[in-house]
């Protein structure tokens, strides 16, 4: 039902756009549909936008001129109006002209483009630096000077993706923890990846940089307007490539300072004591969240996985067998024939998170082992 309703809405919008196009001319219709670069909020994005407009119009003028000539020829030099073919087939002067003129036009284009490239590549003197790490399939932001960091996951509910609930306004472009930065400040990003190549892209900033595992690249932006800006991973990175959005909140400098304080307080409060003994209920509640954020993409919320690529946890021998084997699997990942598989190492999670998620998988769906795994056991297993 939901799907059909969405279709009708989209269809109606399309129809409106088409009618508008016929009645009001292309300009009015385009207002209803996305058809150009997103509004720039950084000086670089503005330059890119101007550059695109400039080159677009040069191309339009050349196109109209060249194909004006072709259509003139098509209408006037056709056999059916009795036109006799001339037999010329060379003219050195003309050929030199149409080699040289395009070359000069290219110089015109290259000049502003060069200026923009030089500006884009200048990452010197930033106000602050954030390290961005791409993972399958989420982003991690590390505030290097402030000493905290967090993961940023897709926040769109699965029900919306599977058409069981109406889609929200920011469908697929919403995250649990956005990157937060101050306005009017040069933010330098150090970009890398933990598994495969990703690309960090926010169109309104004019920034797209591949995140390459094992290498760190840098780029920068300086947002000039407070607001929320959305982008997506732009390099195919596997199954959930379409589901790792980027959201950046640009705050005023005061708001940003407050946010940093709140963030630091939260980190201090949330610091788990690895020696604390948890009861089953609390571990299950914590584990469910950790599972949804890290495991469900492959193993699915139902625990059934997507065999054969992503095995089921429900009824799995590893999950229902000895604890030590499962802890080792989660900490070290799985290798097959000496090469890593999609089950990567999760040792970047805290002892408490790993203990919680293992407890959760051992006591969910059809798995009823009954026991808990405590953070202290993970701590020992790490050594």
């Amino acid at each position, binding site marked *: 039902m939901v*799907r059909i309703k*969405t279709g009708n809405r*989209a*269809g109606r*919008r399309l129809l409106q*756009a088409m009618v508008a196009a016929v009645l009001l001319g292309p300009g009015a219709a385009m207002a209803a549909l*996305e058809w150009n*670069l997103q509004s720039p909020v950084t000086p670089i*994005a503005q330059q*890119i936008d101007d*550059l*695109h407009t400039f080159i*677009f119009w040069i191309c339009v003028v050349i196109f109209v001129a060249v194909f004006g*000539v*072709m259509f003139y*020829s*098509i209408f006037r*030099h056709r*056999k*059916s109006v009795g*036109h006799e*073919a*001339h037999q*010329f*087939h060379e003219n050195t002067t003309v050929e030199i002209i*149409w*080699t040289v003129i*395009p070359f000069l036009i290219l110089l015109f*284009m290259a000049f502003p*483009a*060069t200026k923009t*490239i*030089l500006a*884009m*590549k200048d990452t010197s003197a930033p106000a602050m630096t954030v390290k961005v790490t791409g993972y399958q399939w989420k982003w991690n932001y590390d505030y290097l000077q402030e000493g905290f960091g967090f993961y940023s996951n897709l926040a769109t509910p699965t029900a919306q*993706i599977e058409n069981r609930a109406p*889609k929200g306004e920011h*469908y*697929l472009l919403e995250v649990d923890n956005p990157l937060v930065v101050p306005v009017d400040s040069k933010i330098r990003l150090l970009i890398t990846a933990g*598994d*495969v*190549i990703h690309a960090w892209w926010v169109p309104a900033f*004019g920034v*797209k*940089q*591949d995140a390459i*595992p*094992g*290498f760190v690249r*840098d780029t920068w932006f300086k947002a000039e307007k407070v607001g929320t800006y*959305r*982008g997506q*991973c*732009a390099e195919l990175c*596997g*199954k959930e490539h379409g589901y790792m959005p980027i959201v950046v909140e640009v705050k005023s400098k005061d708001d940003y300072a407050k946010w940093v304080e709140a963030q630091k307080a939260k980190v201090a409060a949330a610091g788990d004591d690895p020696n604390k003994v948890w009861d089953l209920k609390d571990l299950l509640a914590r584990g469910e969240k950790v599972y949804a954020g890290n495991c469900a993409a492959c193993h699915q919320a139902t625990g059934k996985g997507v065999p*054969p*690529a992503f095995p089921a946890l429900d009824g799995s021998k590893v999950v229902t067998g000895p604890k030590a084997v499962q802890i080792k699997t989660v900490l070290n990942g799985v290798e097959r*024939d000496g*090469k890593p598989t999609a089950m990567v190492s999760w040792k970047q999670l805290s002892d408490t998170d790993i203990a919680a998620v293992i407890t959760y998988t051992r006591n969910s769906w059809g798995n009823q082992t009954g026991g808990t795994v405590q953070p202290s056991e993970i701590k020992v297993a790490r050594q």
Partner: protein
Amino acid sequence: MSSIPHDHVAGHGEGHEEHAHHPAGIMRWITTTNHKDIGTLYLWFSFTMFIVGGVMALTIRAELFQPGLQVVHPEFFNSMTTLHGLIMVFGALMPGAVGFANWMIPLQIGAPDMAFARMNNWSFWLLPPAAILLVTSLFVPGGAAAAGWTLYPPLTIQAGMGMDLTIFAIHIMGASSIMGSINIITTILNLRAPGMTLMKMPLFCWTWLITAYLLVAVMPVLAGAVTMLLTDRHFGTTFFNAAGGGDPVLFQHVFWFFGHPEVYIIIMPAFGIISEIIPTFSRKPLFGYASMVYAVAGIAVLSFLVWAHHMFTTGLPTAGLLFYMYATMLIAVPTGVKVFNWLATMWKGSLTFEAPMLFAIGFLFLFTIGGFTGLVCAIQPIDVQIQDTYYVVAHFHYVMVAGTLFAFFGGTYYWLPKWCGRMYDEKLAEIHFWLSFVFFNITFFPMHFLGLAGMPRRIPDYAQQFADWNMVASIGAFGFGFTQLLFFYTVVKCIRSGPSAPARPWEGGTTLEWTVPSPAPYHTFETPPIVK
């Protein structure tokens, strides 16, 4: 296949009947060393792969008809985009071009056959096993390759055995291409009729000669890249793994050193076909023949110097960005020369608009749009916004589909009378053109908007603001797909029941193939013609 001319058609007074002995039935096709038979095999293989790759494209467009997941799972979606790309490039477009080369190069240079007739047979028969490897990889554990046709590691290192089948398929197709190219180079350099100097050759032969050199140069590079992938996957090497001292970006450099010349490999035979069709239907010699040859050669040389424009967002140094941007922009100059020359050929001609000419004009118009968007992509700062978006998808379909595929359609209608001795149904062919032209633009033009507005490519699901144009594109895609059934019908109808074609069905045709009867006898030019 029964309509392909053999013994009974040799009665056109050429006295070839005693030479036309060959096995009948399936053995004829398996053992054939005849360039016309092999050309036919290549063309049917290409069409079959075009349909297979087309079904995959429609699976993609069905999933993208609306936001949300409706038709396939994301992993299968990724396999579809990957196999669609590989099958169209290596299964449909490249073998299609070799099919035209096999049929037409000997006829256009007055040669009795290809230089290496047995190797010609082997080059073709390598292709079906490669295609089977690719298609059956869908059914192995872990599914088919799903890392995009560009096969970037480390994603390809994670994949299941479908990736290994893909790697072997690429090795086999590469071997086939290299053999085909050596054959074409040798044929053109050694078997031209007396008097046919290189600068008197039809332009189709020139573009293929240069294409063949490109293929020999770059297919081994691709083979090297995928072999390194294979050893990284199974034998513990770390060419592309930083943990072992390698670099994932190294693969991209090696791949695109193959990949950029590859896109010219795909377009240049199409340039050749267009350069045959436009003079014929303008009833005028090709304008600027010599500059056309130099332009193709210039594009070929430049194609080795621009590969990193596919990698503008990997974090190249400033000097690298500037070099690759300037070099890429330069390609607009020889490409512009070609477009201007084609227009000058039409200028003051005596134009008629049969189906081949319609496809040639459609090619000119849409390929030029693809050329302009290519120029936009070449400007590195703009490319930062549109790299890996639907803008790029639009750009390369304007050159691959409206460019190469339209040229193949035009070439098919142009030479069908020569191939099977019968005329196609002009009205159906013109409907085929107009439907293809309209649906092509409905499919791919909105993708420019999607890319500019920020929709990444290779995603199975998208945000709401992209919904309208995606729906338009999907409608166009199904229209375009079903239109090609009309192409199939038109060609089959021509082969089975078209009216007989004269030796020279086109008034403006001046090249050597129009001097032999239609259909072309099984053996032609056993005594070389004299070219003045």
